């Protein structure tokens, strides 16, 4: 959107002319009166110059499009004046992604650009986990007198010269679902006997049974046609639960991403891994409102989950005022329990900085759902209060582990090592 404003800064020259002319007349000083001409010249200054024509072309490149967490990424921005007139006073403010910090240089730049000329500037940002989208670049152009201000934003709009995203994925190690961690088949039993791997029963042949299921050896021995049935293996769906409540929007420092952003980054990586195995994935987001998407597979489903997760990435941190085990939050957990059907494995992403995550996962565990907790550690230890929160969190992690619930106590600076061991236990 482009806005054109008048600053009216040279109105002061009118006041100056009135002052000098009045003083000149009153004091009968012709020289003072003469200086009014200067005031008139400055009052008319904006009329000599037209408003700036902002026709610009932007290019943004980064040194690394998929950096690791903490890596410095140098961003180079180049602006070219494609308009017919000189831009005397151009101010450029590049849209640094909301969760990233500039570590060197500045994303703000000024230039005077003749038609066809360019200006470039660089700054360095520290990469953090997640998919970070650059905001539109704001460009402010003033005429040389400073009387007219034109402000506009330059977006990519499909231009390939503008790098829009920075992907800093979570290094997910040793990922496996809890059901995969069990060594033998049929751990998720079903009553109906169908095609599977584990033998269930032999029954009398019925018309329509597959020839491959007939026990021919028995037929040879007894002359009786029987059909072999195997235990049917139902696929276990996975529900990713994201703790995006206000209390979870908490960061270790003012320049650090908050816990929900880390949870979203981890959940995105898990979704991506599950997508590669075409697993049925659903999502439940606990926040100001309960968002639920039932498990299923398919490209559209994964895209919808991605969008639901990303919507919570840029929430702003607020102060934490005690535990938020409100009815509303726990009602959302109850709603999840009523919504999920069949064999579902739960992966909860929560910083565990209050009691909600622990209570929620305990409830899910009590209902028989295999749950895993991924908890980014965003606590600090600079003050007594921060240390207290850190100790409380450590206690929650230990209490969950004591109940055989796998918990990944994840420091975002390190890879996310999945907490489920190879034998169904807790690593």
């Amino acid at each position, binding site marked *: 959107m482009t806005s054109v404003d008048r600053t009216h800064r040279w109105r002061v020259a009118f006041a100056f002319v009135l002052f000098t002319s009045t003083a000149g007349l009153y004091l009968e000083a012709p*020289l003072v009166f003469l200086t009014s001409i200067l005031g008139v*010249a400055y009052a008319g200054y904006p009329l000599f110059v037209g408003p700036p024509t902002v026709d610009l072309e932007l290019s943004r490149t980064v040194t690394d499009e998929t950096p690791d967490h903490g890596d410095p990424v140098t961003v180079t921005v180049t602006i070219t004046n494609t308009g017919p007139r000189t831009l005397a006073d151009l101010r450029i403010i590049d849209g640094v992604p909301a969760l990233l910090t500039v570590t060197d240089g500045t994303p703000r730049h000024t230039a005077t650009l003749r038609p066809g000329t360019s200006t470039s500037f660089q700054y360095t940002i520290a990469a953090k986990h997640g998919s970070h989208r650059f905001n539109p670049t704001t460009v402010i152009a003033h005429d040389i007198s400073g009387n007219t201000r034109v402000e506009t934003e330059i977006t990519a709009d499909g231009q390939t010269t503008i790098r829009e995203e920075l992907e800093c994925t979570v290094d997910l190690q040793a990922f496996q679902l809890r059901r995969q961690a069990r060594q033998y088949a049929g751990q998720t039993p079903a009553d109906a006997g169908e095609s599977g791997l584990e033998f269930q029963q032999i029954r009398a042949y019925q018309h329509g049974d597959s020839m491959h299921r007939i026990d021919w050896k028995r037929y040879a021995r007894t002359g009786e046609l029987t059909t072999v049935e195997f235990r049917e293996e139902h696929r276990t769906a996975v529900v990713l639960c994201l703790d995006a409540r206000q209390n979870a929007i908490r960061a270790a420092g003012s320049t650090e991403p908050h816990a929900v952003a880390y949870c979203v980054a981890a959940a995105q990586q898990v979704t991506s891994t599950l997508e590669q195995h075409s697993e049925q994935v659903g999502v439940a987001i606990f926040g100001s409102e309960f968002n639920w998407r039932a498990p299923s597979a398919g490209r559209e489903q994964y895209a919808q989950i991605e969008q639901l997760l990303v919507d919570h990435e840029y929430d702003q941190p607020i102060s934490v005022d005690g535990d938020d085990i409100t009815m509303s939050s726990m009602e959302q957990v109850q709603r999840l329990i009523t919504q999920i059907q069949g064999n579902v494995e739960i992966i909860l992403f929560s910083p565990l900085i209050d009691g909600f995550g622990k209570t929620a996962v305990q409830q899910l565990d009590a209902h028989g759902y295999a749950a895993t907790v991924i908890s980014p550690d965003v606590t600090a230890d600079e003050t007594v209060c921060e240390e207290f929160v850190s100790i409380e969190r450590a206690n929650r992690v230990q209490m969950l582990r004591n109940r055989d619930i796998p918990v990944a106590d994840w420091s975002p600076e390190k890879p996310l090592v999945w907490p489920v061991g190879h034998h169904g236990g807790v690593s």
Partner: protein
Amino acid sequence: MGASSAVKQPTYAGSALAVLSAACVTGVLASQPVQVSIAGAEAIGAFLLLGSGLVRRRGHRVFGGGLIFVGCSLICLALGLGLLSPGKLFERIVFFGGTLAMACVVLGVFPLRQSWAGSLIGFGIVIFGCGLVFLAWISDPSSLQLLLGVGLTIVTWDMAEHAIALGNDVGRSARTYSVTVTHFIGSLGIGLGGGTIAIVVDSVQLPAIPIAALALLLGAVLLLLLVLFLGDSEWLSGT
């Protein structure tokens, strides 16, 4: 934007040019050679004060603190000497007004306090304007001296306000030299043009024109400019 908020203070380049112009105006208000020296000392103090911000930003906090101390001392010394300098009482008052105005401009762009920047600069410019009018009334300065003083006063205001606005948009750490110099050249050019016209008008030996007629002519020019401004505003709103 991420955690990249800029320090929204007047830019160094614009501030330096504003202080330079202010120092020149103070020099114009000086009627004794010693007063010119005092103005020079104040200018050095002003630049040291500005430079301290640059030094502190690079991490040399103690050295920056020292520059602030020396800069403030020089400015205070100039104010005191300006009041006690030789010359007639009215000349001393005018010069003291000049040193005070310059101190206000420096404190405005330093800035003493961000919210006070505009007010301090405005106050300094008013003192400069009054000092110049007073100077023209009590003594007999040349038209060039007065026009130079008035022109540089306006340039001081323009550059200081530009530095504040630019600092608000891009912060102190951005490179602003080219934009500042372009703006300075534009502002100075208009001053030179206006000053040249004024000198030409002053030098033309016209028969005595009634002052009322001149005032009416000036009023008409102002009215014309006002109408043009209003028309321009409507055209802008139409876009």
